[in-house]
């Protein structure tokens, strides 16, 4: 369906009857904060924003919108980096911000049942008194919501060992586009029928609205230590990562930063990173003190052999957090260096890391834009941060082109255009590179199975065949 088809009419009066006063935003000034998510390069004002408080209200809103053919864009904290929560023209934004209650923590079953607007970190905080925590830890975990995490299948620095959102959500309560509520998954370890849970996780708000999530909690590791290693070249650092894994070690976290990234971070918060290193590796071990001792020694041995020229092991919790602080603040640190930045998100087979980074350096020269790289090295998820100034004529367009080339490069080496941030509107054109026409038709058929009218988050993730033909012809991202 064409976005323009939706602009018809928003049934404001009808919506107002199901919402409490003040929960339907219509004024431009108040709508402004909803015009984009973390990808600020794309903006679109919504027609209205609804802030329901109860499941009944969500169901009623969906029924009204379904009846009138009004598109609905779910929104959590708006920290998404692919434009997933950016409003469609003429759409109603459905904010889940008021669904911020933790409904139950069951230490016996090691599960938490939470509303979709609960912040990622709030779950671990609530579970802490029982010695438990929620493992996936996106760097945005202070702000981002579990509803958004489910929609994007978010990861974090610990997902090599503990998995992504899809490995840690047991059950969802979901409202379909017509307001029908279904329960998907189960508190048991599996559920009968198709794995609709896997389909819903990472579906970018296009298949249903998450009303409740039941997540798995893990016992907090007794202790954790991190090794920080410096390398003189990226190839050696990449080889160290492969060697660690080939040695049978799965670190709790395994992250790499290149020189521009460490310099950005040091300028921001003085985490003590080696500024002469071409690459820094952070490898964490967690578990019982015995386990951690054994693993840290093994990791250090592999790193040394791979040519690390400096190794530092954290000896206190404070020091461990300090080592991590730089990595976790990499995006904002780059954000301070440059007026604007684009965060890319391809995943590549690790063996191609050196090749990909060299190509990115060439592209950086070609487009005349600086680029820092942070890398979930353990699982091959690369975040090049392209720096630009949106106020300088032509720079945004150049940055977008540069980004598109990186995505194509990821596909070319056998990887994917997005590891954890989602397709949204940002990477919709590159879906045509990664998938064939028949594969895209299958995605569309799945979408139609859930949402025949295409009302939930239209214009995201799934390119139209026409768009793909144009992209293939012109090679242009937009």
């Amino acid at each position, binding site marked *: 369906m064409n976005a323009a088809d939706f602009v018809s009419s928003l049934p404001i009066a009808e919506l107002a009857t199901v919402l409490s006063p003040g929960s339907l935003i219509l004024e431009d000034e108040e709508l402004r904060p909803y015009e984009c998510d973390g990808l600020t390069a794309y903006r679109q004002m919504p027609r209205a924003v609804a802030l329901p408080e109860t499941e009944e209200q969500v169901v009623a809103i969906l029924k009204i919108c379904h009846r009138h053919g009004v598109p609905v864009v779910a929104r959590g904290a708006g920290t998404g980096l692919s434009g997933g929560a950016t409003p469609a023209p003429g759409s109603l934004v459905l904010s889940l911000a008021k669904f911020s209650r933790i409904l139950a923590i069951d230490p016996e079953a090691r599960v938490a049942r939470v509303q979709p607007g609960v912040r990622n970190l709030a779950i671990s905080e609530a579970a802490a008194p029982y010695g438990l925590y929620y493992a996936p830890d996106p760097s945005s975990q202070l702000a981002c919501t579990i509803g958004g995490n489910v929609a994007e299948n978010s990861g974090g620095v610990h997902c090599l060992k503990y998995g992504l959102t899809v490995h840690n959500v047991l059950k969802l309560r979901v409202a379909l586009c017509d307001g029908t509520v279904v329960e998907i998954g189960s508190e048991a370890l599996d*559920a009968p029928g198709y794995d609709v849970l896997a389909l819903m996780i990472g579906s970018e708000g296009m298949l249903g609205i998450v009303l409740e999530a039941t997540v798995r909690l893990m016992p907090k590791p007794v202790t954790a230590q991190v090794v920080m290693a410096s390398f003189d070249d990226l190839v050696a650092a990449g080889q160290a990562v492969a060697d660690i894994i080939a040695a049978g070690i799965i670190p709790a976290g395994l992250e790499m930063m290149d020189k521009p990234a460490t310099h950005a971070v040091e300028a921001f918060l003085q985490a003590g990173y080696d500024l002469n290193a071409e690459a820094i590796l952070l490898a964490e071990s967690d578990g019982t003190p015995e386990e951690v001792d054994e693993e840290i020694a093994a990791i250090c041995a592999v790193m040394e052999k791979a040519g690390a020229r400096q190794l530092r092991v954290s000896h206190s919790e404070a020091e461990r957090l300090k080592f991590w602080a730089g990595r976790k603040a990499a995006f904002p640190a780059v954000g301070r260096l440059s007026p604007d930045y684009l965060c890319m998100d391809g995943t590549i087979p690790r063996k191609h890391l050196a090749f990909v980074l060299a190509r990115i350096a060439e592209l950086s020269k070609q487009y005349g834009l600086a680029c820092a790289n942070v890398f979930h090295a353990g699982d091959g998820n690369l975040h090049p941060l392209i720096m630009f100034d949106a106020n300088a004529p032509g720079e945004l367009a150049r940055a977008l082109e540069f980004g598109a080339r990186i995505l194509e490069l990821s596909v070319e080496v056998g990887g994917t255009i997005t590891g954890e*941030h989602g397709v949204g509107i940002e990477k919709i054109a590159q879906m045509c590179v990664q998938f064939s026409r028949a594969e895209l038709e*299958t995605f569309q058929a799945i979408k139609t199975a859930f949402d025949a009218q295409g009302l939930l988050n239209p214009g995201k993730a799934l390119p139209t065949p026409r768009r793909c033909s144009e992209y293939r012809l012109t090679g242009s991202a937009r």
Partner: protein
Amino acid sequence: MSDLAQEFAARIRTAETPLVIRAGGSKDFYGNPSTGERLDVSGHVGVLAYEPSELVITARAGTKLAEIEAVLAEKGQCLPFEPPRFSPATTLGGMVAAGLSGPRRVSAGSVRDHVLGVKLLDGQGRELSFGGQVMKNVAGFDVSRLLAGSLGTLGVLLEVSLKVMPRPATEASLRFELGQADALKRLAEWQRQPLPIAASCWCDGVLSIRLAGAHKAVEAACRKMGGEAFWADDFWQDLRDQRLPFFGASTLWRLSLPAAAPVIDLAGQWLIEWGGALRWLITEAPAQAVRAQAAALGGHATLFRGPETLKRQVGVFSPLSEPLMRLHQRLKAAFDPKGLFNPGRLYPEL
């Protein structure tokens, strides 16, 4: 190595009757009865790519699990979810289609958790690829994982990429004489602690625990937990492949429950795995009673093995809610609009 994809695609495109997909036949007993012309996919074999340091293996779906596990073992790696091998003929495709995991599932995750990518033929005979050979991939809907456990009703699997893991450095097994209620209580306590418990099995008044992990961690856990150490590799393999005498029963229920579920009031013999989350039951109790108990506790009950008449009467899998069944039907139609593949094997409606 042989590539039969074109041949299968031609069969699908010209099919006038439903196709029953079969590879090693090790799971013929599993699922609802399904009839149609046989599509034998066991010849589509070969490991296509294996990079130990990438933790990924890709193979054609007809490849025997035994071959894959041997290739992994050479590099000190494994399929940590320990899929059951009901016979030496068990294949990779059958493993994914059935979606069954073994003893270590509780600590290492399931088949579905380890599926990274698939290539399949849909109901129009089109070759489609989803996911890939990388561990993190959110481009498009997660079709690869949707196929795990779909019992061949959505398409013919051609290739699968799996995440693999290093074999644990050390393993040890402990035994405790405990009644069912005490065993469940003990398991719940242990699982709240960061102990390297890889698997558990309670049967006949004996709780067996398998520890796996770093050498020092396993040692420390042995000291802390007590019990009687036993050499048990055979035991865990027999549990995995269901060769223990318990599994000889002709009618066997599989109850998947929240781990913290209490002792269930149904007469019969029990074997409990996954820290309480998987309970096998041999019982005379009617299906309705078994299903009602499982549902009341937030789980579901599968008639894992049973006579065909009983399967037809009560269905192998717990019924789905009406809106969820409608979604299933529409998903089935999205992949297989003519209803060619394994009709009825998962649910009569599919």
